């Protein structure tokens, strides 16, 4: 798509500045959006992209600066004015009311409130027209709460189109989508651009930015640090601009596997609800080795992680930790046995959102010295510990007393990583440790896991990203329907060969091929 130097500017941002306490989230940001172009706003988590868009849409008030839409100044802090000026936003956290139908969510706020009855038939026709024109298939009468993530996003886009938005802001729209859904989204966006809409696309995924945008703006630490035409740049340059330094992919040296620290023998678990249980699974985790567990999501990964973390107990089979059978297996026993856990869902099970960083940092050891002495909490020790994690793990935050929900995903994950690694666990259970993180954070987390391996820890890396497993793991198992494949040494199997196992072929019933 040509960036068209003479196309008129539909949106002008001038010197937007926003501070949250001591943190400057946006620092004098200025740019224009021209008619019919897609600009990508690229930046790491916490670089200030979402804050900027929330100011543009009127959720936040900027401390300084002004916004002009189609030649008129937008009153600050007023989403209605932004909507009326033709600015539509697809929020990262969807803003749908689950108890309302798709149709109701779309027409919400588009009719005068004091009106008897509402024009649903016309609205339904219009929504159907829009969904055909833009390739956004949704069922108007479905309750929003029953929709899949992809469908919810389509409703969010329809909400903006229904209001005749001329500018679409998409905040990390692909973070929750499968690759197929992402392709569909891009097709929709291209249709929108063909009709003269302008788009701001926020992302930290470079290949997507390169695929969809005509111009890239890079944000770092709240500052606009660069602007390039997409045609004239590449991944390497963008990554460099985004992080501010060269990114090196993690390098993994040869492994020196030690003794077996955790051994599962023919372990089975009871399936819970729709989740798959383990079926007679045997696994060894060795010191100084990263064991990768590949597999399609929902094939027993959760059961295995929960089992090792002590949340469930085996229904059959034996589990040995450090050569001794695990008895009375609970999360606390798992912690005491030296198992460090990086949970899959950092928001739900990894942290307590409304606790401070300090409280979250000691969640797994608060009752032990030095954090507690004779039943009394030592806040100074907790504070010292948290400050050292913040410093050593590069957690960007307002301070140890800030609520953790204010942190970006990457910074939250760094705090969890610090909490786990500082306890010097013998066994590290890392479940999807880099999901949703930007490249800077991904490389950081992966390097730390490699360091832990060098230091002699047994690492179990559970990931749905085969590339990640192939890069990091010394031995690879594939899990499928609760069964485990034999161990494959690094480099002994191609991605395609592993894919066959992931599809469930090659397993013997009742055990694994030896």
């Amino acid at each position: 798509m040509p960036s068209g130097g003479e196309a008129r500017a539909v949106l002008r941002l001038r010197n937007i500045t926003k501070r949250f306490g001591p943190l400057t989230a946006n620092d004098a940001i200025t740019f224009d959006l021209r008619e019919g172009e897609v600009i990508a706003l690229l930046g790491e988590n916490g670089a200030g992209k979402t804050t900027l868009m929330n100011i543009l849409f009127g959720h936040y008030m900027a401390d300084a600066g002004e916004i002009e839409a189609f030649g008129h100044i937008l009153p600050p802090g007023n989403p209605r004015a932004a909507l009326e000026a033709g600015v539509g936003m697809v929020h990262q956290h969807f803003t749908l009311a689950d108890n309302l139908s798709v149709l109701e969510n779309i027409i919400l706020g588009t009719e005068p409130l004091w009106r008897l009855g509402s024009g649903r038939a016309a609205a339904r026709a219009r929504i159907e027209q829009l969904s055909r024109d833009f390739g956004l298939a949704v069922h108007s009468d479905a309750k929003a709460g029953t929709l899949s993530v992809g469908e919810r996003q389509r409703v969010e886009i329809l909400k903006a189109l229904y209001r005749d938005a001329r500018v679409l802001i998409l905040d990390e729209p692909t973070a929750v989508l499968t690759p197929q859904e992402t392709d569909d989204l891009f097709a929709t966006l291209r249709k929108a651009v063909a009709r003269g809409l302008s788009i701001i696309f926020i992302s930290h995924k470079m290949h997507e930015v390169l695929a969809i945008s005509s111009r890239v703006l890079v944000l770092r630490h709240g500052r606009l640090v660069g602007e390039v035409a997409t045609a004239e740049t590449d991944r390497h340059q963008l990554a460099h601009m985004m992080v501010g330094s060269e990114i090196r992919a993690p390098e993994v040296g040869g492994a020196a596997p030690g003794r077996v620290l955790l051994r599962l023998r023919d372990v089975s678990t009871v399936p819970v609800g729709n989740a798959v249980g383990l079926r007679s699974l045997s696994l060894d985790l060795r010191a100084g080795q990263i064991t990768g567990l590949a597999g399609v999501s929902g094939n027993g990964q959760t059961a295995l992680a929960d089992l090792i973390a002590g949340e469930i107990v085996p229904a059959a089979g034996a589990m040995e930790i450090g050569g001794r059978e695990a008895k009375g297996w609970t999360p606390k026993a798992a912690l005491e046995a030296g198992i460090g856990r990086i949970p899959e869902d950092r928001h739900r099970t990894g942290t307590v959102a409304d606790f401070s960083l300090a409280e979250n940092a000691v969640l797994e050891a608060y009752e032990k010295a030095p954090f507690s002495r004779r039943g009394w909490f030592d806040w100074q020790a907790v504070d010292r510990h948290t400050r050292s994690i913040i410093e050593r793990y590069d957690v960007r935050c307002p301070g140890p007393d800030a609520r953790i929900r204010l942190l970006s995903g990457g910074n939250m994950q760094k705090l969890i990583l610090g909490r786990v690694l500082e306890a010097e666990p013998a066994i590290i259970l890392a479940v999807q440790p880099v999901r949703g993180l930007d490249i800077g954070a991904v490389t950081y987390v992966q390097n730390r896991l490699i360091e832990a391996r060098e230091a002699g820890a047994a690492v179990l890396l559970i990931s749905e990203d085969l590339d990640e497993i192939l890069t990091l793991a010394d031995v690879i198992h594939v899990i499928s329907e609760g069964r485990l494949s034999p161990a494959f040494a690094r480099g002994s199997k191609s991605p395609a060969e592993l894919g066959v196992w992931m599809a469930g072929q090659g397993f013997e019933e009742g055990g694994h091929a030896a």
Partner: protein
Amino acid sequence: MEILDILLSASFWAAAVRIASPLIFATLGELICERAGVLNLGIEGIMVVGAFAGWMAVYSGADLWTGVAVAMGAGMLFGLLHAILSVPFGLSQHVVGLGITLLATASTYFAYRVSLPEVTNPPRIEAFKELPIPIVSDIPIVGPALFAQTPLTYLAFVAAAVVAFVLYRTPLGLALRAVGENPHSVEAQGLSVTGLRMGAVIVGSGLMAVGGAFLTMSAFNSFFFEMVNGRGWICIALVVFGAWKPGKAVLGALLFAAFDALQIRLQQTSLGADIPYQIFLMMPYLLSILALVVMSRRAEVPAALMVPFNRGER
């Protein structure tokens, strides 16, 4: 069977509908507040205010409908106070609500003592009279139960229909249902979360006060201390029982009222001679707890109920 005789008597059903009427008003009021995401525990006190304000207005010479309007206005004032504290200030809805109940109750008693310092027995007023509707009121059982009531009872059922219509058939109702489920959805569509929630609390409180006014203006014809007697709390339970739906809530109010009417009558039967009357008094409450346990299992609670909304917070 004595119970059968009671259940077949027209007076029993008429009593049930009469007892249900104040509950219907107040339950609707609470339902509107909760649908918008605000738990209004001021309900008990606001009913006391309504009972007093309506009665006092009529005692001072106003006509009955003016009295109802005065009660509603007084309730809305306390609703406004609740709304300011719980919505823009985002204070704990439990604390605000209980505070409003204590404040409203105490200031009512104070106003009573100031306006009638010398009185030992509260004066009676000329209250609403039964207004049988021709023809339909002659239907056996149903007629006296539903169509030979006071105008305020009719108004209760009209109010239920209006609330249901607004909630499910108008853009305003859509916005109300959305704001209690996910205020961000409302904000993102350019509506004011604060305005909607405050409006709901004020109007809802007005309805609660009319429920209170029913007691003095259509049931007891006078004002006593403690006359609301926990009805507000029952209405909170009825909202849950009704799964936040007006129709079901009305049914719940009728059910509770029927139990209440039944226990009064059972006390006068031969059973009443053997069993302490306190057991009968407990019955409606026990049965409502039981019904709540059964009914509220699958109820869809408004997701943002009791969650204050602060703009610009992640």
